[in-house]
């Protein structure tokens, strides 16, 4: 049985549609990320799941029970969830242990049991030593852990995380990401994780649901998503691929605006007609063969060098070994591997 099932969710704010016909199933114990740029509807989807928003149409089931649908509207407090908010939402007037104890107190649990469970939850997030501290005495990373302990303490059916790592600096983010993975492996909770950071999603998730403008573009395991993006958007957002629009003619790709011609590799499935070309920076080569393009910038990345060429008003990015070239020079760019999406 699916832990969560979303069926045909629609939600608009006034005249602006935010989520348009979203359907998704999350299996028991699975970690699914909702990934997409800001404004794509991922947070709204999470909030509908939490019961903080009500879908205009569509059905939400948690553990087989319908919590939102025609005539059904289970309020958030009766959905048995845990949630970590983007700003953590740690209550400033309560100490760390009071924050964590709150969900248990509401369940009328005996005091001794509350104390035991709070201690256990604080041990999970390694905050035992700070139990009596006030939130204003804590750092961002520590607040994040308080929020996590509070969300987990009552043993939720599903844990929802709304960009939990985005307010932290890079090093702390790495550390908490690893901790989250370890915690999840230990507790086996079903997780829904909202993020706009594709690296985070790729590293943590069992499956990733990529959203764009309120629509689900693709749901797949990270590797599948990376290797076989279903749409140009997924390829661009998840793999950081170059995306060009144009037309396929006689085994070559002609860009729409400038008519720049790229020879397609022999193994590319190319049907003639309008198409979108998707190619990763590392699948382009600089050398003797290919399309002549003027170099506009050269960026040293450490492990490699990125070269940028203006094509059709965007920059074509190529990642290749270091070369002694200067911006302004003309180089030959060759496609080694590409993916074509027919338009229409």
């Amino acid at each position, binding site marked *: 049985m699916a832990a969560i099932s979303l069926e045909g969710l629609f939600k608009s704010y006034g005249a602006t549609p935010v989520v348009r016909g979203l359907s998704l199933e999350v299996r028991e114990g699975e970690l699914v990320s909702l990934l997409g740029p800001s404004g794509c509807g991922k947070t709204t989807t999470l909030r509908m799941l939490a019961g903080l928003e009500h879908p205009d149409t569509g059905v939400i089931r948690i553990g087989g029970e319908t919590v939102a649908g025609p005539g059904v509207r289970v309020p958030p*407090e009766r959905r048995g969830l845990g949630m970590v908010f983007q700003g953590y939402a740690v209550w400033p*007037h309560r100490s760390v242990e009071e924050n964590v104890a709150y969900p248990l107190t509401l369940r009328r649990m005996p005091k001794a049991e509350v104390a035991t469970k709070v201690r256990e939850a604080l041990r999970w997030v390694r905050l035992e030593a700070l139990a009596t501290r006030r939130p204003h005495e804590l750092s961002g990373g520590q607040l994040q852990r308080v929020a996590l302990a509070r969300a987990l303490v009552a043993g939720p059916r599903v844990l929802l995380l709304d960009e939990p790592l985005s307010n932290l600096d890079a090093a702390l983010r790495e550390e908490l990401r690893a901790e989250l993975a370890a915690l999840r492996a230990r507790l086996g909770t079903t997780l829904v994780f909202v993020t706009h950071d594709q690296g985070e999603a790729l590293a943590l998730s069992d499956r990733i649901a990529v959203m764009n403008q309120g629509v689900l573009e693709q749901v797949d395991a990270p590797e599948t998503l990376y290797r076989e993006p279903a749409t140009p958007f997924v390829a661009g957002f998840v793999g950081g691929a170059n995306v060009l629009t144009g037309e396929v003619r006689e085994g070559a790709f002609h860009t729409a605006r400038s008519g720049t011609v790229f020879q397609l590799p022999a193994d590319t499935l190319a049907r003639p007609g309008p198409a979108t070309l998707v190619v990763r920076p590392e699948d382009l080569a600089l050398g003797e063969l290919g399309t002549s393009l003027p170099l506009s910038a050269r960026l040293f990345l450490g492990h490699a060098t990125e070269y940028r060429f203006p094509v059709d008003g965007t920059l074509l990015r190529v990642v290749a070994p270091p070369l002694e070239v200067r911006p302004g020079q003309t180089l030959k760019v060759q496609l080694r591997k590409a993916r074509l999406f027919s338009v229409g």
Partner: protein
Amino acid sequence: MNTSARWLGLFAWLVPLVLFAMGPVVLLLARGAGAPGELGWEWLVSEAGALGNTLAISGGAAVLALALGTPLSLLLFRTDLPLRGAFTVLFTLPSAIPAFIWGMGWLSLASPRAGYLNRLLGEGTLDIHGPVGIAFVEGLSGLPLVLLAGAAALRRVDPALEEAARVCGASPARALLTTTVPLVLPSLLSGAVMVFLMAASSFGVPYLLGVSASPPTRVLTTRIYELVLLGDEGLGRASALALALLLLTPLSLLATWALGRSGRVRLSTGKGLASRPLALGRARAWATGGVAGTCVLLVLLPLAAILLTSLQRSFGASLTWEELTLSHWSGVLLEPRTLRATGLSLLLAAGAGVLVCGLGLAAALLQRAFRRLGAGVEAIAVWPYAVPGTVLALALLLAFSRDWRFILLDKVAFVLALAHTPWLLLIAYAAKYLALGTRNSSEALAQLDPSLTEAARISGAGPLRAFIDVPLPLLRPTLTVAFILAFLSCATEITMSVLLVPAGSEVLGKLLFDLQSYADPAAAAVLACAFVALVVLGQAVLALVARRAAEVR
């Protein structure tokens, strides 16, 4: 909040506001608008003097407050003047203590014969009576409005602007005068407009310094009072004057809005920008002396004069140690009339404080629940604050001079008989100061992240439980502040108290007014000292609460 609960809440909140504030004022306006037709235009022209005096005095007060407030706010909030904090506290006293008491202080200092200053300078040198004296006292008691506007604006001026002027080669003083001053001027002007409004609505000072003078100076508020005393025949005329007075409010607010708009464009939004205070250098001693002298003369001296008057056997007698006595103090403070007035005033102030907090918090919540309509909710709650006390009191007098009978569902009938009861005072206080509760709560609520409450819901709390557990404790310091502010305002309120106290009852504001006007200045001075003590105590508590609230965050 779901839709039907929202509308039900709005309705429940609107009923008392419409019934006890909007309705009466609208009735008064309707009556006032009909008055010229009823009484003839000649009568209206005969009252033009009062309107002219109101405009001239209020304008004078605004100019004085601006002239004093501009250099003071620059010195206090932009330079390294020593004791800035202490000076700031002292210079906010004029607004915290009722203007009537400052009028009493200046009467002690500068009444033509017996005033203490005139005894030093020679009899008749100064005369606080008349339009100039009224404008002077009103301007001083409005000074904090300009100072606070200046402080807020100065905090928002990007220090980089002044630094840029310095880099271009301007001296520190020149940089200040050519960049910062023009930027904060619109805010200072809007503060001055507020002083204008406050002075136009003021009743106590023009009564004290105008009505008993010869020739008497009449303004709209004191004319309204005189007409109300005439009984029913005067009420029609009083309503017409009230309408004229009330029209000043939207006009001034429009001016403020226009000034604010032209000023806001150039001020940085966002948090307070720390700026290095301008070093006064060699001018420091002069500036300190000037500010200290101003403070002593304008703030401390009138209060000292009241204290001295309360201790003198008789006002006007020679100043010797033998003439000092505590008999007025024991006489006034132990009198049953004073005790009754104190009891009723404190009870009414506490009741009004609770209403202000409750209805104000409800207004803030409704404002949030209705988003776009919320601005309307705030306007309804804040609007009575801008209505002059004389007008609000007159409106309540007129509306509830007869009993209202309501019949619900053909069965339940109830009668609202409020005339000649202290309830009318409670309503007036609560309506007038509701803005304090609304503004404070809505500002505090806006700073609360909604996810704090949502986190409580997810944790398993229902809507009511979540509200009690999360926003309410976080709003408590704010509500305490609003309560204390409303309590102090009501306990020391004079204008509406004078008009609305029923025969046989007594409240502090009315008692002070009566003692000063008809009895004995020494006895009034004792009560005034008690008012000042209450205000200072209240401000100290406020400062304490504010510091605690800051610690939680």
